[in-house]
């Protein structure tokens, strides 16, 4: 575990450094408060620190305040180590953002025990952050395909529709529906159907840019948001998706299965004010047109053709 120690007094600094190295810490030693704050505010900086109170440039409490103000992503466990020992000092130190307080001269056993407490708290925080991220992912993604789920992609689409007016760019909204997917489930079973959906998701993600969005809208229906994509380019971009899906059969545990996709697209220009629901109706109409035209093709919405 990385630890930062900051003390302008050479004897104390060296003693701490050696004690902590022996205890297995990876020690960064600095002799003024500004350097300490810089190190601790780096994204990959130490998350455990022992700070002397009286230091040049910035004192210990000022370092605590700086770190608390600037680095909010992950908690940094800050321990003030000083010979100041009045109750007022302790209160001031803790109110500046320190997590703990040790009086000089330190006792090695107590120092290590307190740092272990700090590590336990950081570990607990890591577990909580991980659990939160996991829950956030599950709440926003489809569990089968790992694509964005319906609620999330609609939310993102609504955000992009608002943004396009400000940024003065068009966005293309695409519905894609697998052709005769029911037959796959009926013929090979739902497990193979799931394999197909996972591979379709992978191919769709591979055929769009990093700033586009792909979501699973329903069973075998997908919604794609192509950002900064005007009508002149829309059909070509959607054709790329169609070819990515139908270009080669999908390998499954039951052998290769040829799959195709019909797609409908509508382009919303910066000046367009059509609400989300109507845009989706327009795209749905284009998809229906693609299905009616024999499937495995793409059609542009009527508003864009006019």
């Amino acid at each position, binding site marked *: 575990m990385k630890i930062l120690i900051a003390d302008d007094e050479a*004897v*104390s600094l060296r*003693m701490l450094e050696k004690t902590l190295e022996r205890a297995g810490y990876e020690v960064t030693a600095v002799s003024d408060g500004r350097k300490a704050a810089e190190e601790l505010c780096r994204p990959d900086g130490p998350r455990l620190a022992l700070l*002397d109170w*009286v230091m040049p440039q910035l004192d210990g409490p000022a370092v605590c305040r700086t770190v608390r103000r600037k680095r909010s992503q992950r908690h940094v466990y800050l321990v003030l180590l000083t010979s100041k020992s009045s109750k007022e000092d302790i209160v001031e130190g803790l109110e500046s953002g320190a997590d703990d307080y040790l009086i000089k001269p330190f006792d090695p056993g107590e120092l290590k025990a307190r740092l272990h407490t700090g590590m336990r708290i950081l570990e607990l925080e890591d577990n909580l952050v991980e659990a939160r991220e996991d829950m956030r992912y599950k709440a926003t993604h489809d569990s089968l395909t790992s694509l964005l789920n319906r609620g999330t992609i609609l939310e993102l689409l609504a955000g992009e529709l608002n943004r396009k007016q400000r940024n003065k760019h068009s966005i293309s909204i695409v519905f894609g529906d697998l052709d005769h997917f029911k037959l796959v489930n009926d013929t090979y079973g739902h497990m193979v159907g799931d394999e197909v959906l996972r591979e379709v998701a992978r191919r769709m993600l591979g055929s769009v840019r990093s700033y586009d969005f792909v979501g699973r809208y329903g069973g075998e229906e997908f919604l794609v948001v192509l950002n900064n994509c005007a009508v002149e380019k829309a059909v070509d971009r959607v054709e790329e998706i169609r070819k990515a899906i139908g270009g080669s059969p999908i390998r499954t545990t039951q052998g290769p299965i040829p799959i195709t996709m019909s797609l409908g697209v509508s382009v919303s220009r910066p000046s367009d004010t059509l609400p989300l629901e109507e845009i989706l109706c327009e795209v749905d109409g284009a998809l229906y047109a693609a299905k009616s035209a024999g499937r495995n093709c793409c059609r542009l919405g009527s508003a864009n053709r006019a």
Partner: protein
Amino acid sequence: MTNSEHASIDQYVDMPELLARVDNDSELLTELFALFQDDFPKLRDALHNAVHAGDPRQVEKAAHALKGMLANLSIKHGAALAANVEAAARAGDEREIQQALAAFDGEETGVLAAVDRFMAGGEP
């Protein structure tokens, strides 16, 4: 020749406590005393300069640094005398500062001599 020049390091330093703090690492102990020999005179001079300049804030700061260094090396009486100077400076009492400084000066000469003798191999 004064008594302090012959005094054992044990008279000033709580060696069992210090050895425990450095995990009985004699090499580290030597390194720390060498740092002390380098830094202590500078801090002491800073303290004297601040007293002569009549700057209680600087006196407090220098005395605080000396107190920390001495306490880390288990030089307990020396640390207590430095703490007296710090307290007097915080109170802004000029007379108290002078008295506390005199007591500190009396002790630090002996401390330095004992550390010098220890480092020169004059005692185990």
